[in-house]
């Protein structure tokens, strides 16, 4: 996911900002524009694959795990927004301003849910317009040709939103947050220290302790060497993302046409 996203973002940005000098350099690094385009389309296919794999996973594994589609969609561990999320948002702002305690987050915090659906939204918008741009002859059999122009704008601006958001807001929420800094490895390892868990997601912790299932979820941590490799990968991704953001900001501010 991370790899395909970063590939898509960087190849796409060289085209969107093709009038800047860094884009020229970057496209050369990809082996020329044609090759950058191929990488972009390949990564897009990978991302479609990941998307469908996730849907598949949802359909078969998660549903079974959580006990049926109703529980998946409407239970306490759902990704869909609930009343509690609204309460959490209000409580968070109060906490920011020093007017209340930190909210007791459950399985999924509201910003994690937002990130999740942003991806869905992004997949839909960017993916469909991207397909239109990839196969214009096919789509113009039943769509007017001027929609290709519209698709270009939507695709590139939505991509700008997505990449900008990921490399700033998401990075902060997940990695640059001072309590998590330098990064949260949970996406890679699938596990976090129990103490952290207790502080971060207190509602979830309470629930597991109460039901006695906490012991089931305890695992040995990974070997240091594994952790180190993961950290290196994560740092690289972080670095690339940060550079991209800087470049994008520079292009938008100083070189925009």
């Amino acid at each position: 996911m991370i790899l395909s996203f970063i590939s898509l973002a960087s190849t796409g940005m060289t085209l969107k900002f093709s009038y800047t000098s860094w884009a020229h350099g970057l496209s050369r690094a990809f082996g020329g524009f044609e090759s950058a385009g191929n990488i972009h389309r390949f990564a897009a296919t990978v991302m479609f694959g990941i998307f469908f794999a996730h849907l598949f996973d949802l359909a078969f594994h998660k549903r079974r795990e959580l006990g049926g589609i109703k529980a998946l969609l409407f239970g306490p561990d759902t990704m869909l927004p609930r009343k509690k999320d609204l309460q959490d948002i209000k409580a968070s702002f109060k906490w920011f301003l020093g007017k209340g305690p930190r909210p007791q987050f459950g399985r999924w915090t509201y910003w994690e849910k937002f990130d999740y659906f942003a991806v869905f939204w992004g997949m839909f918008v960017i993916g469909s317009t991207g397909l239109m741009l990839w196969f214009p002859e096919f789509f113009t059999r039943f769509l007017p040709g001027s929609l290709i122009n519209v698709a270009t704008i939507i695709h590139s601006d939505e991509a700008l939103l997505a990449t900008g958001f990921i490399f700033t807001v998401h990075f902060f929420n997940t990695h640059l947050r001072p309590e998590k800094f330098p990064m949260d490895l949970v996406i890679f390892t699938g596990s976090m220290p129990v103490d952290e868990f207790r502080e971060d997601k207190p509602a979830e912790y309470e629930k597991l302790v109460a039901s006695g299932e906490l012991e089931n979820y305890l695992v040995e941590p990974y070997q240091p060497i594994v952790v180190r490799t993961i950290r290196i990968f994560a740092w690289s991704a972080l670095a690339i993302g940060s550079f991209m953001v800087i470049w994008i900001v520079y292009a938008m501010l100083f070189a925009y046409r």
Partner: protein
Amino acid sequence: MIMLSLMDRDATAGRRNRRAGWAATVVLGLFAGGAFARSNSDCLDCHSDKSLSTKRGGRTVSLFVDKAVFEKSVHGAADCIACHADLAGKHLPHDAPLAKAQCGSCHDAEQKLYAECLHGKAVARGDGLAPLCQDCHGAHDILPVKNPRSAVAPLRVPFVCGRCHKEGAPVQLQREIHQDRILENYSESIHGLGLLQKGLIVSATCASCHTPHRILPHTDPRSTIARRNIAATCARCHAQIEEVHRKVIKGELWEKEASVLPACVDCHQPHKIRKVFYDQGMADADCLGCHEKPNVVASKDGRSLTVNPAELAQSRHAKTACSQCHSGVRPSPARPCATITTKVDCAACHAGVVEEYQGSTHGVLAARQDANAPTCRICHGTHGTLGKLNSQSPTFPINIPTLCARCHREGEKAAVAYIGNQHDITTKYTESIHGKGLLQSGLVVTAQCTDCHSAHRELPGNDLSSTVNPQNIGTTCGRCHHGIEEQFARSVHAKKAGATDKPLPVCNDCHSAHTIRRTDADGFKLTIMDQCGRCHTDIAKTYFDTYHGKVSQLGYTKTAKCYDCHGAHDILPVSDARSHLSRGNVVATCRKCHAGATRRFAGYLTHATHHDAKKYPFLFWTFWGMTGLIIGTFFISGVHTALWLPRALKMRRERKKTKAASAGDRREESAAGPETGEEGKTDHE
């Protein structure tokens, strides 16, 4: 007039005196009147009558004098009685016949010579056939000798003399003339042919050898045609003949008269001057006699005057004689080349080219005595001039760029004085497709400097008659690229009456003047959009907002560029059915790259921009909608993050403190064991 006042005397004496007085008056009056009555108009009163004639010796002789002719003649200002002196003091009408006019009253030198000569003596003898002045020169219509219409102008001389001396004339039959068929022989001789066929008026005529007023027989030692004087007579024109005479006397005369030096006429019979066909350039050997020596220099400035005969023999002018170019040479008994005062004028043979050259910038500068201006010899050389088809010649096509570069290379004299916008011309040309074709591939017909700028008519581009002036460039390039010129003339960029007054592009606006590149090279393909963009600025900018434009900026040349859709030389307005982008043709144009293109596909807006709310409103609003979404999202997230940050920092500090405290506790409790990365238990998600 004296009037005697006789009124007071007595009547008789007064009457007698009065009669005498009247008689005196009348006589005086007659005398005075007689003097006045002799003006030309008085003579012409009768003699301007065309029918006036008299009989003389059985023939009717006209006495008509044409006033207009007379006034134009060399004697036009003179009085009639100046020549007809015996009319002085006579009344009119005068007694006929008048004595012959005496030319000697003014021309006494000629008269004296004439008196000594054959003709003069015959006249003195009263020979009726003898020629008088008027027989050769005319009477009332004498023109100066230098005037070609004079009766004794060189071209007329043989006919004047021939009147008496032609075969069958009374003079030839009845007098002792020792030459026969004079006129016939003369007219076939080289002198005669030169004069009569070729109009060379400096050819020898009768007058040249026989001295017209002093014609003496060859036996007379004073005669110009006496044996011992003949050489001097001939050498008046054939000045150097003694030095250059080729034909060795065969030995015949030596055998016959061993001790006698031959005179010209011994071999070259008079009147029958033999036509000799001399070798072309025979005299050149005489020039080369001195000028092939290596140390021959000019006395004025010491420049070398050496001519390399081998170089000359290989040149285009090998068959041209020295004097054909150095035509200022005159016959001289000393060095004829000393008479040359003028530079060689190539226009003598190459008049057309020189005229063109004089109109060119080079010619104008040369006329101004500009030291840097190229003259004929600078480019073509002098004695070693080779034709332009000779590969050694500096004017051979492959060598021309080098030739022009002598002055037009950056830093050389012409480039330094140049005030236009073309720079590094020779370098650019060498790298251009024309330059590569010519210099690397040796393709001799490729365009080089003179093909576009003309060889002798170079003018700057802002001159209307220049071959590289914008209105002429199409024709110039079209000399080779004819098909393109035709296409272009039908396109929207060609100048058509009343179509537009905006400046229209010509060949060099898109292709540049000297850096003309292969059109399938990437460098050309990408820069051409700058060319279109120079005039079509707005639409070029919008092109770069589309996918084609963006990708082309990364150097991708396979994408559609201006000319892929619009054509290059055959651009037509979209409303024209022949345009590549007309309704009927546009899908085919898209299909050049997009095989499955349909009409809807061609609905793609190739120059759409989201900046134009009027033209493309839905793009404009889509863009601003997306932008609003982006701004909104970042704003909210940004606020959220900014507010979170201080809380998050506080949390981190607290966690560090507790971690340190608990670590200290645990170390005291447990036995030493390997510290794992994270504390003990982890939770699987």
